[in-house]
């Protein structure tokens, strides 16, 4: 049994604990260790993706107990894809934090590594209860991170975030408990087998549990109407944390894709396509409402949060199309939207640092010292986020629209996605012109905002944009790769067989 599947869990956990012991050492040492660990995770994710390239599914039995009696970690192509996206995003968020953000509170690097531990665990786990446990791990770390630096607005938004997620955890446990009560197992592969053979008198209960689980994942993914926590929480936290949290909503999306393609997917017998009637309308509504929020935002960071909401709508629209091409489109769109949103959060922070008391709000302020550089980067980021040619956002949207062609509701999907894109473009064009073109001369006696050095701060932003560029240049091979992942997801018996072996 290869130990590769558990390595992405052990590395951040051990480094996180190590960093706790190193808390009295110089901050540069801790930064080096933390960044090295993230590089290690990128390496591990690449190794794992390489090991799975032939279409294998790695199953790691903890304590060598056979599934479904023991706990398993399952590394399939989707999990490896998510691990890679997370590690790449984490690198740039961490590089940004290392420029001073990490000293505004205590234990930033410890929490950051534990957050990655929770994220990686959620992607790799093979049973629902451990999905709950890893959700709690990543949430507890995120509670610490979201409050990092402190301050009134941050504490208030953080309190809402924590209370809402605690209520979500209670719902998660009720759903998991009901599923256990009906099927007597929580191993996802075993559940997939048992759900397909649900006896008639248990169908109502199983359906209720499945939909309750969907509610929980929708809360994590910020799907309409459960997105209200996101804008306040993300707009008020520190920039690197907001950038890292671009992946947090995607954990909810990942859970929806995993559970509703494997357990309640096309082969689930009486419970097949459990959430199909709900997902597409909700996803389209999320996309539209998110874009309306983008239009109405009063500051750049707030605008970025609503773009995150809208991107969840796009992603789940693609998944709800319920075709291989749709899933492939959502898997291509997922890293794109994550990197683009993170770049926008970081860029908004740099812009805010250049505008003195006006920060990132959309009001005319004094001209920025490096307006050309910042404006150029904002232009590229906006193109990337909205999905205009030639960058990866356009390709993602193109794949989504092409997948929608074969769907019965193609006209509606296209109308909403294109309208959403238009609204986003209008909103970002307006923000750009307000921030960069409509500058005011300084008032009498007012001193210009200090021109902080920004070249180093922009490296992570440029890095994230380059990732988007790479996704454009290598769109061909990547598309083949995501199509293979979608292919694997559309055949859940591969997963079931890998986990349960001959025990079916």
């Amino acid at each position, binding site marked *: 049994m290869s130990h590769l599947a558990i390595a992405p869990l052990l590395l951040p956990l051990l480094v996180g604990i190590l960093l706790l012991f190193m808390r009295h050492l110089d901050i540069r040492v801790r930064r080096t260790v933390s960044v090295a660990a993230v590089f290690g995770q990128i390496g591990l994710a690449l190794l794992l993706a390489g090991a799975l390239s032939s279409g294998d599914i790695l199953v790691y039995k903890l304590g060598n107990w056979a599934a479904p009696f023991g706990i398993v970690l399952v590394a399939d192509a989707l999990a490896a894809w998510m691990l890679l996206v997370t590690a790449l995003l984490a690198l740039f968020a961490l590089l940004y934090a290392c420029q001073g953000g990490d000293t505004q509170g205590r234990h930033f690097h410890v929490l950051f590594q534990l957050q990655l531990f929770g994220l990686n665990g959620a992607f790799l786990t093979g049973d629902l*209860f451990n999905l709950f*446990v890893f959700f*709690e791990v990543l949430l*507890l770390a995120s*509670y610490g991170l979201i*409050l990092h630096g*402190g*301050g*009134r607005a941050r*504490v*208030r938004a*953080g*309190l*809402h975030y*924590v*209370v809402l997620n*605690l*209520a979500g*955890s*209670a719902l998660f*446990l*009720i759903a*998991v*408990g*009901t599923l*256990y*009560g009906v099927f*007597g197992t929580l191993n996802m592969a075993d559940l997939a087998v048992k759900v397909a053979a649900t006896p008639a008198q248990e169908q109502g209960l199983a359906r209720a549990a499945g939909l309750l689980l969907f509610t929980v994942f929708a809360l994590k993914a910020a799907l309409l109407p459960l997105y209200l926590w996101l804008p306040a929480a993300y707009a008020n936290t520190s920039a690197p944390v907001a950038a890292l949290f671009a992946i947090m909503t995607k954990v909810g999306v990942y859970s929806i894709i995993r559970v509703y393609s494997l357990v309640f997917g096309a082969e689930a017998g009486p419970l097949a396509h459990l959430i199909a009637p709900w997902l597409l309308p909700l996803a389209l509504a999320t996309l539209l409402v998110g874009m309306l929020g983008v239009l109405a935002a009063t500051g750049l960071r707030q605008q970025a949060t609503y773009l995150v909401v809208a991107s969840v709508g796009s992603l789940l629209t693609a998944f709800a199309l319920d075709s291989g091409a749709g899933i492939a489109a959502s898997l291509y769109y997922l890293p794109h939207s994550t990197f683009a949103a993170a770049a926008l959060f970081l860029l908004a922070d740099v812009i805010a640092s250049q505008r003195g008391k006006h920060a990132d709000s959309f009001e005319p302020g004094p001209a920025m010292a490096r307006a050309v550089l910042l404006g150029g980067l904002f232009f590229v980021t906006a193109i990337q986020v909205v999905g205009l040619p030639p960058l990866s956002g356009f390709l993602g949207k193109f794949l989504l629209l092409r997948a929608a062609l074969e769907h019965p509701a193609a006209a509606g999907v296209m109308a909403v996605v294109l309208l959403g894109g238009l609204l986003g473009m209008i909103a970002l064009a307006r923000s750009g012109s307000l921030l960069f073109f409509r500058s005011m001369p300084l008032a009498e006696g007012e001193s210009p905002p200090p021109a902080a050095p920004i070249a180093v701060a922009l490296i992570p932003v440029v890095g994230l944009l380059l990732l988007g560029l790479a996704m454009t240049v290598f769109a061909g091979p990547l598309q083949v790769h995501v199509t293979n992942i979608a292919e694997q997801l559309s055949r859940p018996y591969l997963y079931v067989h890998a986990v349960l072996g001959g025990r079916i």
Partner: protein
Amino acid sequence: MEALIAISIGVLTACGVYLALRGRTFPVVLGLTFLSYAVNLFLFSMGRLSIGQPPVIRAAATAYADPVPQALVLTAIVIGFAMTAFVIVLALKARAELGNDHVDGVEQP
């Protein structure tokens, strides 16, 4: 016994939801605690209720209690404790930062 457990879970949940919807942090924390008690009881009872049955293999036993929900509920209790401790500290911090204990940070008349 089933009815008693069911009613207890229902009452705990109702109290929890009511308190969690209150406007001040202290009742909200209490409400979340009640909710987690209700959830723990629910999770435990999902292994079916039985009295005096061993959960592990024993030669003389004729029937067994399901050990898995007991393990699950233990995990859930530990996590619930940690989360409650955290949210209490956070509520105190919010009280200090915002100057009052309303969840929105604004004193309502």
